[in-house]
């Protein structure tokens, strides 16, 4: 099956999403809620592409024969940049002392998009820190509602530690409803403790053990692995 991304012809297998086919071809489509081990939900909209003239989330849209996909247009880059920008002001993201700095997908995405300061006013929403669990801490200040933890707990761990609760601006990640992490069967070895793209779910006592210069995004922008993989 063939289709095009920004005019480049791409080979795809039946059932593949646009993102999967693009990844295989070495074309990086930015994403934050999508994770290769989890079912896609098209929630963050950072992967929005134009498919035959209409905006679609590349992580959930299956490829069809002859599809014309636009990825790196000025409009789409602007659109994605704005979404990332909004994530920064809707949480309390202090990269300067966040232990996920250098390994954070949101921070890396901002760097990739050349964001040095948000263009929107900070909301400074009141958020909670749940440090009740002996080995895992939840800092809701940094949550971007990607729901990776919700899916990982259900799909990979066979548990139901995390849920999305509330609506709109008040939507948040809950643990067993309105309880704290210590009340759940969360284990530090759960996959849900590994998939957080930001510094919301952190393993206690592991902070800053990787020196600056050896962190995931210290030398290469996010997406480089996909782009390099495609050239081989």
């Amino acid at each position, binding site marked *: 099956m063939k289709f095009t991304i920004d005019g480049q012809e791409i080979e795809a297998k039946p059932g593949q999403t646009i993102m999967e086919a693009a990844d295989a071809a070495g074309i990086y489509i930015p994403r934050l809620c999508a994770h290769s081990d989890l079912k896609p939900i098209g929630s963050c909209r950072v992967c929005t592409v134009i498919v035959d003239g209409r905006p679609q989330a590349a992580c959930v849209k299956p490829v069809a024969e002859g599809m014309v996909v636009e990825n790196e247009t000025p409009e789409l880059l602007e659109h994605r940049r704005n979404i990332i920008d909004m994530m920064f002001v809707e949480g309390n993201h202090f990269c*300067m*002392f966040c*232990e996920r700095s250098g390994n954070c997908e949101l921070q890396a995405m901002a760097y990739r998009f050349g964001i040095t300061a948000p263009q929107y006013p900070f909301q400074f929403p009141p958020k909670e*820190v749940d*440090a*009740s669990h002996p080995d895992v*801490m939840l800092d809701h200040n940094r949550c971007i509602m990607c729901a990776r933890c919700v899916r990982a707990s259900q799909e990979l761990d066979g548990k139901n530690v995390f849920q999305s609760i509330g609506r709109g601006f008040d939507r948040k990640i809950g643990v067993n409803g309105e309880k704290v992490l210590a009340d759940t069967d969360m284990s530090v070895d759960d996959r849900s403790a590994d998939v957080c793209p930001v510094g919301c779910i952190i393993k*206690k*006592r592991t*902070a*800053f*053990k*990787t*020196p*600056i*210069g050896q962190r995931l995004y210290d030398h290469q922008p996010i997406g480089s692995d996909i782009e390099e993989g495609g050239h081989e």
Partner: protein
Amino acid sequence: MSERKIIIEPVTRVEGHGKVTILLDENQQVTQARLHIVEFRGFERFIQGRPYWEIPVLVQRLCGICPVSHHLAAAKAMDGIVGVDQLTPTAEKIRRLMHYGQMFQSHALHFFHLCSPDLLFGFDADVAIRNVVGVARKFPELAVQGVMMRKYGQEIIKATAGKKIHGTGAVPGGVNKNLSIAERDEFLKEIDQMIEWSKSALKIAKDYTFEHLDELADFGAFDSNHVSLIREDGAMDLYHGNLRAVNAEGATIFDQVDYQGYYKYIAEEVRPWSYMKFPFIKTIGPENGWYRVGPLARINTCDFIDSPEAEIARQEFMGITDGKPNNLTMAYHWARMIELLHSAEKIRDLLNDPDLQGTDLMVKGERREESVGLIEAPRGTLFHHYKVDENDQVTMANLIVSTTNNNTPMNLAVEGVAKKYLSGTEITEGLLNHVEVAIRAYDPCLSCATHALGKMPLEIELRDAAGELIDRKAR
């Protein structure tokens, strides 16, 4: 009684923003001088609730000039929280290297960029010349040395902390990297040059002090107590030790005090006109228990320096007061340059120590609820005190920063200078300059901005008792 206020703000070429008020009585005599710290930072409050392992990286944001000091003081406190009393040799030496690199770059910055214009051009020289650009024009070699020395120290910080400013090297119980052979060899190439340049900077400060001894003896000088960390054998130790306090005559007030119990010996007084507290030695009381910290205090308190060339310099320094504490405000510059040389010598010794290439970086221990970390920062003794709950969240923080320890001495220095140089109600450039020079001797860290060019607008206001403006001078 009719009182007048003269306000000088902002003070240029100190690390931050301050404001000086000089209170006059009806006879135009100075009654009191107050150095206001206008910033309110709030760190002690807003780090509550944060996990303890985040604190060494978070609190260093207090300052962009000596973040390493806060980073290491907090890390030392958190060593205690994770139950570690002794780091691995590699971890302690990497931290020491980071600290000496910090001391070296900060002292070099202060001397060459902030203080040397005063010494080289004179306190009364035109501010258009009396700045770092003026130094670069008239003494280009000296200016280059200053830049290169600062860079050397910054590169050491980068090699040990990952970044020149606000790195992550120290973690509770150790460090996250060692020093590679390649990194070490780069530093070894230049260390002899750094020591030579340190000696020539020391000579400038020393010669200046000798040449102007009579003038300086009367310039913001006053007797005081002196406090610093001290090694168990009485040697100067900038990274670790116990607390020692001596009085103006050199008599011991307390000695070899474990700093975990610092609060039994030192208390802080609050005064309504300043956000900065006024620390004092408890047994003496707030009136006379205040003390100096920093380079001058450290040279005054220690029995000896364990690096040969700095020890020779210390003996020369103590020689002019027959071995008793030196109480001249302007002697800070000389003392600071002795420490610059000491830091360079210590860096050389560490670079030649194979422990820096060790791979045993972390130690674990039994969790504790409360811990104190102290370090001798470039500007003086820095106190970090934390309590951490069973969920690993900070519940209490008390920070006594170096500049706070020097609060009363700085006020007295300004008062002394104002009494000497203020004549009548005329606001002169000379008064302005001399007050600034006195404050700058303490290298105060008032917030996080540098005004190295001396171009900040400087304003003095004269106000009568009713607060009415009767005169103003600005530049």
